[in-house]
């Protein structure tokens, strides 16, 4: 192919030349060119290397269906986008483009050996060859395959661009801005509703842009659309997915068509559009012909050559052969001839060719060969000539040429139609599936409805060459390098359904989803199987229509906006204190408060010591809180929790354990009875929403007769945990209206009064094993009260502590954390919480399940403590536990470590674990195999500190 710029015509702006580079070489084009048209005009033939065989490949198409010319567009550091289709890249000054899948260069590619040894790469090659030995996969096969195969390289750095997103609603949404689409939009607009018209090209017009006789019509339609104020036209916008109830996802490319320095604002905009009616006007895609040599650069779709010539003023070659099975190829030949391009011959596979067109072609002096077909193409990096012959035993002729055009007929674009699960019906006239019945409120117009006169054709399913299919380089799927012989092979090996043939050969599974190959594969399979096309099934198109950037799908949902970050009212204070934070579900919590030069271990040790010896202060505001109110509140909680609640007196607290109906622990927390008909529930930090949802579920759908109201109060209360032997002394000067003496205000009691002048629900509870209070105050007063307590605690060395110290302190006491020490398969008995189960209660959620055979069986994992033999060894959380360290791999694992810490209080490490029959293993030695060696540990009870609980009741 020796393309050149035709000295006149096209929709390019010849007054605006543009310079760009391709693989480092500089070229010139014009405004209005695409990368593809400018490169063809410059005589470039090879656009890339093929996926599997690394064969040199040229441009095939001028639209979205292009399978070969995949380009990495380089817009500066970290702005390289791979796998873009050259005919869809608008040219701009300074554009930098690179070909893909070649090494070291496009012209000299070492992996072309794949092609020489192509006989060894048949369908299913990967499945068959790299099966054994398994060990070789990771080290040998995968790295080698990854080096040789694959399309463009994905960027490794963070995407510096930002992406916009919006919602829209309209009465009618039209996809496709060709004549049919524009007419449909105008028709809808006349009825007065909101209309959207979406088209993926730079300008409206679709296929008509390649037909100068239709330009006046296009201009007129565009002007009328511009004048209609209820029509929104989105060009450079791809409607990539059609979802339920006429919900369309579309991506608008805002800046990729302008030079990087001129690009302002968001790169892309994601449109989510809900339409009353969707009109699909996506047109049709021309079908390649499958013959030996059909992938030599310079063999391309006939309509692509026409588009290059009429829209971009580019001739694909100086001497062109047209191979046709459809009238449209003849029309294209005449159009090119009129521009002075030499048409060497029209070789038509049909014996009967259209009479009127034949007359015109003969009058133009173009030789015609009906009933003939190309049997070979010469040339490696560009077409040099063709061999062709009459069907069957015909004598081969040779013809020199530099381009071969394929006119194989048309395939209506039913992609979005298929996304919306519209049904398809086979049309013999089109040799393709056409839209039949819609599920959504959707209709199809123009060529994609089959309602457009593109001429007549014949679909041929046999190769036009009598030579054995195994010897022919007749490609069906250019992008995935699938040949006709691969489909033959798949059928020989027993595959019958097109879905299986597709997966075995990978036909249609590349980034283009088989836009040019699916129907040809179907025809060949039908021919080899000797069954009608309609009997072997149909593969389905799925979103996205074209590959989309992750950036556009993410939109603004990144960094701080990825998900909400919840902060307590004490957060600012913690930041000022230099706290190190961790995220717990959506909450940001202070993990520890290091002093200058202090690491985590030292800080946590100091914080724990302060709590055990004097007093520590902890922000517990993230605890989930639910207010349960109503005459039946106690009855409701009695049914929900394992514990008895009716007997709980106002002013008292209780540890509540919540199971799912299957008997496994779901959540826990200390709750208080504030009044006869009012409870203040607490849940775990992450569990609040699901606990509330579960309670609402039972209340609304099972026990609607109960008079109870549930209100989430998590964010209404700031909760300050004050823990340690000095806790009472710290708050005593601040509290009014509450007798703090141990007798009047015992452990697990709640009182209402004021603290620092602020109304409080004061809980005497402990998650550390020390004397402790949890001071609930309205969130708006939280910082004020915190400051007052902190000032009052100065004389006792009050120490703020974070979640890490909280974890250590509770682990020393063997208090569980649901979700850390339990995993959704643990019962109260497994966790040693039998005491929290009200055995006399007739029913509660999960009670019946506690008698399930599997739950009463032996061999369940049970909650225990572990003490390593080496007191300085800290086990890894999640580490597996075995009995016999010498057992060969895979070893019998009897449990795992759930919590593990360095305990300053105890001067050694401690761990919690779940262990098969753990309660019966007290005193046994178990083994924890780690990469560095086996660790020995002794099984103990889970309470390591103050097992009598005397400090609590101080």
């Amino acid at each position, binding site marked *: 192919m020796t393309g050149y710029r035709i000295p006149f015509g096209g929709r390019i702006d010849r007054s605006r030349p543009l310079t760009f580079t391709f693989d480092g070489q500089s070229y010139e084009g014009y405004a209005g060119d695409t990368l593809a048209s400018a490169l063809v005009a410059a005589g470039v033939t090879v656009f890339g290397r093929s996926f599997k065989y690394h064969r040199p490949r040229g441009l095939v198409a001028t639209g979205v269906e292009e399978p070969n010319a995949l380009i990495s567009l380089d817009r500066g550091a970290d702005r390289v986008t791979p796998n873009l289709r050259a005919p869809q890249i608008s040219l701009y000054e300074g554009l930098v483009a690179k070909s893909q899948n070649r090494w070291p260069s496009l012209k000299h590619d070492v992996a072309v050996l794949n092609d020489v040894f192509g006989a060894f790469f048949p369908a299913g090659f990967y499945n068959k060859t790299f099966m054994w030995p398994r060990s070789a996969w990771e080290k040998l096969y995968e790295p080698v395959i990854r080096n040789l195969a694959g399309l463009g390289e994905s960027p490794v750095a963070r995407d510096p661009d930002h992406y916009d997103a919006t919602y829209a609603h309209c009465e009618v949404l039209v996809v496709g801005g060709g004549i049919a689409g524009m007419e449909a939009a105008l028709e809808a607009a006349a009825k007065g509703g909101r209309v959207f018209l979406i088209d993926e090209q730079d300008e409206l017009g679709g296929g008509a842009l390649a037909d100068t006789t239709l330009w006046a019509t296009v201009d007129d339609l565009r002007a009328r659309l511009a004048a209609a104020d209820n029509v929104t036209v989105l060009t450079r916008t791809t409607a990539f997915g059609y979802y339920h109830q006429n919900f369309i996802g579309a991506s608008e490319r805002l800046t990729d068509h302008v030079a990087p320095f001129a690009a302002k604002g968001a790169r892309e905009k994601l449109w989510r559009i809900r339409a009353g009616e969707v009109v699909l006007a996506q047109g049709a895609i021309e079908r390649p012909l499958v013959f030996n040599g059909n992938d030599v650069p310079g063999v391309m779709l006939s309509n692509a050559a026409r588009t290059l010539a009429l829209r971009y003023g580019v001739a694909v070659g100086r001497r062109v052969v047209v191979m046709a099975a459809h009238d449209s190829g003849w029309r294209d030949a005449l159009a090119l001839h009129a521009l002075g391009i030499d048409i060497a011959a029209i070789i038509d596979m049909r014996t009967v060719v259209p009479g009127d067109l034949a007359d015109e072609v003969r009058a133009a002096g173009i030789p015609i060969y009906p009933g003939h077909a190309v049997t070979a193409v010469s040339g490696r990096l560009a077409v040099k000539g063709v061999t062709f012959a009459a069907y069957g035993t015909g004598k081969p002729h040779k013809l020199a040429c530099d381009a071969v055009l394929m006119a194989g007929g048309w395939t209506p674009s039913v992609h979005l139609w298929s996304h919306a699960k519209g049904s398809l019906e086979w049309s013999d006239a089109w040799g393709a599936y056409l839209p039949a019945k819609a*599920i959504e409120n959707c209709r199809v117009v123009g060529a994609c409805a089959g309602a457009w006169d593109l001429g007549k054709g014949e679909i041929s399913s046999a190769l036009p060459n009598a030579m054995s299919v195994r010897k022919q380089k007749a490609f069906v799927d250019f992008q995935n390098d699938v040949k006709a012989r691969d489909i033959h092979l798949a059928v020989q090996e027993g595959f019958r359904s097109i879905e299986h043939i597709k997966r075995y050969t990978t036909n249609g599974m590349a980034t283009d989803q088989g836009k040019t190959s699916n129907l040809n594969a179907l025809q060949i399979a039908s021919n080899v199987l000797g069954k009608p096309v309609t009997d072997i099934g149909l593969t389905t198109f799925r979103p996205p229509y074209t590959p989309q950037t992750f950036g556009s799908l993410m939109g603004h949902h990144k960094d701080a906006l990825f998900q909400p970050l919840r902060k307590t009212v004490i957060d600012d204070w913690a930041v000022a204190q230099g706290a190190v934070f961790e995220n717990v579900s959506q909450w940001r919590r202070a993990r520890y408060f290091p002093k200058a030069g202090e690491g985590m271990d030292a800080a946590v040790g100091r914080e724990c010591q302060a709590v055990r010896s004097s007093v520590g202060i902890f922000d517990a505001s993230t605890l989930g809180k639910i207010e349960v109110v109503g005459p039946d509140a106690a009855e409701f909680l009695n049914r929900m929790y394992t514990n008895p609640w009716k007997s709980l007196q106002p002013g008292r607290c209780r540890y509540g354990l919540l199971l799912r109906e299957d008997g496994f622990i779901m959540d826990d927390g200390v709750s208080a009875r504030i009044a006869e008909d009012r409870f203040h529930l607490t849940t775990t930090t992450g569990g609040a929403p699901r606990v509330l949802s579960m309670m609402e*579920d039972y209340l*609304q759908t*099972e026990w609607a007769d109960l008079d109870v109201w549930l209100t989430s109060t998590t964010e209404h209360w700031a909760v300050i945990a004050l823990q340690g032997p000095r806790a009472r002394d710290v708050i005593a000067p601040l509290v009014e209206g509450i007798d703090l003496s141990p007798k009047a205000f015992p452990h697990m009691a709640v009182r209402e009064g004021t603290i620092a002048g602020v109304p409080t629900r004061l809980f005497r509870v402990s998650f550390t094993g020390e004397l402790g209070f949890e001071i609930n105050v309205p969130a708006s007063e939280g910082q004020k009260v915190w400051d007052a307590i902190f000032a009052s605690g100065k004389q006792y060395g009050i120490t703020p502590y974070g979640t890490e110290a909280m974890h250590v302190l509770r682990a020393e006491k063997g208090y569980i954390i649901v979700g850390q020490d339990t995993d959704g398969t643990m019962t109260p008995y497994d966790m040693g919480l039998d005491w929290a189960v009200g055995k006399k209660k007739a029913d509660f959620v999960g009670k*019946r399940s506690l008698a399930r055979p599997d739950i009463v069986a032996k061999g369940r994992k049970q909650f225990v403590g572990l003490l390593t033999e080496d007191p300085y060894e800290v086990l890894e959380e999640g580490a597996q536990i075995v009995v016999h360290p010498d057992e060969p791999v895979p070893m019998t694992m009897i449990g795992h470590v759930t919590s593990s810490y360095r305990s300053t209080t105890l001067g050694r490490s401690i761990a919690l674990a779940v262990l098969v029959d753990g309660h019966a293993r007290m005193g046994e030695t178990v083994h924890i195999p780690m990469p560095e060696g086996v660790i020995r540990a002794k099984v103990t009870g889970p309470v390591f500190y103050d097992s009598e609980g005397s400090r609590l009741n101080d």
Partner: protein
Amino acid sequence: MILIHCPYCEEDRPEVEFTYGGEAHIARPLDPSALDDREWETFLFVRTNERGLHAERWRHLHGCARFFNAIRDTVTDRFEVTYKTGEPRPDLTATTKAAKAGGKA
């Protein structure tokens, strides 16, 4: 994204406002302790796993927060009808046949 009609709000709202609640019309036994293991297993775990019209619970979590029931076609993912908790399952055999015959609905 599907639009779901909340029978309490009487509005079509986007799917993200709702949460799924499993198969509908499975009442918790009034006295679970009276059930043998097999009966309890059936209540806990056995579901119809319908191909086609499926009665299921939904909750308008980010709206009125009410639970309600829906008949959804598990093949097409279409909501045929939604109705309030406590109401009987509507008989849709006639209406769905009509809808299918019409092609669009």
